[in-house]
Each structure stands twice: as structure tokens, then as C-alpha cells.
């Protein structure tokens, strides 16, 4: 479709626009360097017109401080570059926890392992690793797992405030960050909750409040990947979204017979 020359000309200008704004991330650099030594000539790309399906690697000419050379660029490498190296995000933006936007966007191992594409299933090995990491992250309250104040828990469960930054940062001095449960779970019949996660209405009434059930619930709130590898649910304990006391309050909202959850 393209002639060699025109393809090269277009790509040099074009890739430069994407890639030259900052040095490439280390893995990308390594791969490009490896390609640079090869004698392979630029070949016309088959016009990629598979509009759906897994992202593929692209052979493109890269021009940076080391000159112009052919490189294989995977979609994953380009995505990582766009997120963390291309000035696409406010990487220096302060966060409520005292870190930066870069820290928010840099993936930890669970986030990386659980970034699964279309129709992606977590394989057994990955699931085992994720669950192992999650279980190891869980810290238990001194003096054992107890239920707190269900009314405070209700406030937390129905609050989506906290940790938002971008164009309108949440001021944590003006409010307590919430637990965000209601966005995804139906909790009680008095208000409408979401359906991304399962309904939790009647939680304590249906399950009882045995020590095992309390422990299980604490662990799921703290880091749900221990039981459900690569679940959508946030890690409220492991990521310091909720304190242990706040988890106890949310648990009281789920277990207390007086809570609307069990009415």
C-alpha cells in the first residue's frame, strides 16, 4: 500500500511527534536498542484494519537522541509511554496522601497483573499470585476484629467523597473520605445503590456474625483480591482508603441487627 520511502517519511515525522517529548521508558529503550543492531530494512506495513481484537505490535521508525532506527513498539509500551512519559497527565499534581500524580498512575503488582484485556480471564497462576499478595497485605486490628458504630458506617458506605484530584481535588480537611460502597452495591432498601458488585442487603441477617464471618468480611473490605483475584472492588484497607476503625464501622453497618441493611 505504501512505498518504502513515503512510509518512512511519514513515520519519522509522525513518531517523532509522539516519542520525542521525553525519553522512553526503560523496557522500550532496551527493545529499540536491540532492534537497532539488526540489518532489517523498513518494510511496508500491512494496512492494519482489524478494528477489534488484541492490540498488536507495530514496526515503526523511531527518532530520538540515538538517531533514527527501526523499532518494534508494542501497544503496551506505547500506552505506558503515553501515561507516564509523555506529559499527558499532571504527574506532579499533589495527592491527598502526600504523593504525586505519578505515584497514582504507577501500577503496583496487583494492578499490573489485573489489567486484563477484552475477554481476558485470569489464569490460575496469576490468580494464585494475586491472592497471595493480597493475603500478605492484610493487617488485623490489635485486640481482634470488632464491630463499630453502624450509623458512622452508614455515612461512610454512602459517601463517594475523597481522593479525587484532577480538576477538582477533594479537600480532606473539609470532609472524611468515604468508603464508596453504594456506587457498586445495593446495601439497604432505603436508598438505591449500584449493581457492579453483588447486593449486600440483609448481609448480617443472612450470614450471622460468627468470628469466621467477621474475619472474612474484614479481609474482603481490606483487600478483596485475597478471595476474588482481580475483582473490580477497591482495596480499602491495603490502599489506606479506610482506617481499621472505619472498617469496623462499615462492618457494623453490614452486621448490626439495627442497621437498615438488615431491616
Amino acid at each position: 500500500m505504501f512505498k518504502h520511502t513515503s512510509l518512512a517519511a511519514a513515520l519519522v515525522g509522525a513518531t517523532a511527534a509522539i516519542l520525542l517529548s521525553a525519553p522512553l521508558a526503560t523496557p522500550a529503550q532496551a527493545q529499540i536498542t536491540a532492534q537497532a543492531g539488526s540489518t532489517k530494512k523498513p518494510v511496508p506495513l500491512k494496512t492494519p484494519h482489524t478494528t477489534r481484537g488484541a492490540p498488536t505490535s507495530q514496526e515503526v521508525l523511531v527518532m530520538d537522541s540515538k538517531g533514527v532506527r527501526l523499532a518494534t513498539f508494542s501497544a503496551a509500551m506505547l500506552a505506558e509511554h503515553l501515561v507516564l512519559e509523555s506529559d499527558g497527565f499532571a504527574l506532579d499534581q499533589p495527592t491527598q496522601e502526600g504523593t504525586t500524580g505519578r505515584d497514582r498512575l504507577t501500577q503496583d503488582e496487583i494492578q499490573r497483573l489485573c489489567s486484563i484485556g477484552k475477554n481476558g480471564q485470569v489464569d490460575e497462576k496469576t490468580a494464585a499470585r494475586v491472592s497471595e499478595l493480597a493475603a500478605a497485605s492484610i493487617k488485623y486490628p490489635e485486640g481482634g476484629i470488632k464491630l463499630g458504630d453502624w450509623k458512622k458506617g452508614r455515612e461512610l458506605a454512602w459517601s463517594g467523597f475523597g481522593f479525587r484530584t484532577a480538576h477538582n481535588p477533594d479537600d480532606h480537611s473539609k470532609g472524611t473520605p468515604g468508603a464508596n460502597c453504594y456506587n457498586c452495591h445495593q446495601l439497604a432498601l432505603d436508598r438505591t445503590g449500584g449493581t457492579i458488585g453483588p447486593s449486600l442487603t440483609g448481609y448480617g441477617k443472612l450470614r450471622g456474625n460468627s468470628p469466621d464471618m467477621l474475619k472474612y468480611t474484614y479481609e474482603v473490605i481490606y483487600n478483596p483480591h485475597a478471595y476474588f483475584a482481580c475483582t473490580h472492588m477497591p482495596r480499602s484497607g491495603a490502599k489506606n482508603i479506610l482506617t481499621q476503625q472505619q472498617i469496623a464501622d462499615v462492618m457494623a453497618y453490614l452486621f448490626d441487627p439495627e442497621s437498615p441493611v438488615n431491616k
Partner: protein
Amino acid sequence: MMRKAKKALALALFMSGAAQAGTDLAPDEVLRGLINKIDSSYLTQSPQNLMMMPDNPAYLVAEEGEQLFKQARGPKNASLAQCDFGKGPGVLKGAYVELPRFFPDTGKVMDFETRLVHCMKTLQGFTDKDAAISKRHGANTDITKLTLYVAMQSNGLAWNPPLKHPLEKAMRDAGEVMFYRRAGTMDFSCATCHTATGSRIRASVLPNIHVPEEWTKAISWPAFRVGHDATRSSQHRVLECLWQMRYPNIRNGSDASIALISFWTDAARGQPAILPDMKR
């Protein structure tokens, strides 16, 4: 809500716009067509909006956009008549549904808003310091008005972003990776909310990217956001989602934002655009 005269004007404008775009279907009729085609609680979640769509306040914003578009403005005292949105200078019909695309004159893949700003700089001489360019997301910005005017001329046409240039494909594929990439305080990715059918955040039904008939409505921006009492753009949708996801601010017009928009537009390929839409 609106005065009768204004309403009549808006309707007249909309009728002429529809005729120009080469489709006889009004935006609400495009949406009804999709509703008749598939069973979707996302598409049907607001009968009120469906009823109000013929009187969409966005039409008045588009009217102002048409005046701005044709008016000689900026340091170079030029109109935007010669702006090339990808189908040649001055060709507006169908241009909006064929973006993002690669532009040889800049060597970049650009989305609509980035291209519009490019034209305002090169043709009219505006700079980033001018309010005409620097004000992006509000209801009464020049960018919003101009976007509506041009976007409406693709109403009812199928999304068809070109993927012929390797960079268009590379950006689309990187956008797909970003869509599934989990990060932030709460481990969210775009896929957390947009890969299941009929699931809700609170009371709002979420669109599924794997159902193109739902997804075309999801990406049909600009739209009038009833809850904001304002028209909003694609770039604004990206910004708001990432805010809720606890991500840092994404730079408007960055390659990162354009990669995401490239992927999400491709996901609606072949489905008719609803322009302007009306959303909750």
C-alpha cells in the same frame, strides 16, 4: 424552559443542519432506531431526555457556534471556513465521525478538539493565552460552541475513524491498553465500569463498550448534560471519568487523551452518531 421563538429558531436550525448532514433522522430518531434494534437498559434509561431531545438546548449553542465559525476573528482576522478537519478544507459534513485521524501537516493523530485549536492558531492567529482557546470545558466557551456546530453535521452518520495510517492504529491500540490499565487509589480502569451490560453506578445505567449500539450513545459528545445544565465535550468526558477514578489531571489534547478517544471511537464503528445527544 425556553421561549417559543427561541424554540422555533432552534428547530429550524436543527432541520437545516439535519438536511446538510445528509440524514433525515433527528438525533432522537437515531436513538429510537438503536432502541428498536437492541434491548438496552442503558439506551432507555431516560424517557424524559428522549422526549426533550427535539428541544435540546445544545441547538442554541450550535447556532452561536455557526456564527463564530463564519466570522472573521483573531489577529489574522480570518474565519474557520478553510479549516481542514480531515476531509479537505471547509468540508464539515461527515468530518466529525472520521476523527481522530492522522494529519500530515502536523505529523500527529489529532482528535476534533485538538484539530479545531490547530485551525484557530494557524488560520486565525489565536494563541494558548487567548480565552478563545484556553477556555475549554464550560457551556459558553468558543470551543464548545464551535464543536457543536461542526459535530451536528455528522448526526446520524456512522462512526468511521480511519485506521489506515500506522500511527492511527498505534494510537488506537495504545488506547485499548489504557482502557484496561488499572491504577489509582481505587484500582479503577475504564473497563471497571464499561465492560458489562446493564450494570449501574448508583441509579445510572452504564454503557458497555462491547455493545456498539450502546457505545455510540456513550461517545456521542458534545451532548447537553442535564445535570450540569451545560453542553460538554469528549475531552470533558475523559476528564470527568478520570477524576472519579482518582487519577491526576489529564492534559486536554494530549496524546494520552487522543489514544483513549481513538479506541473508544473505533469501538462504536459503524453505528450512527447522535449529535447532539442529551445525557443525564
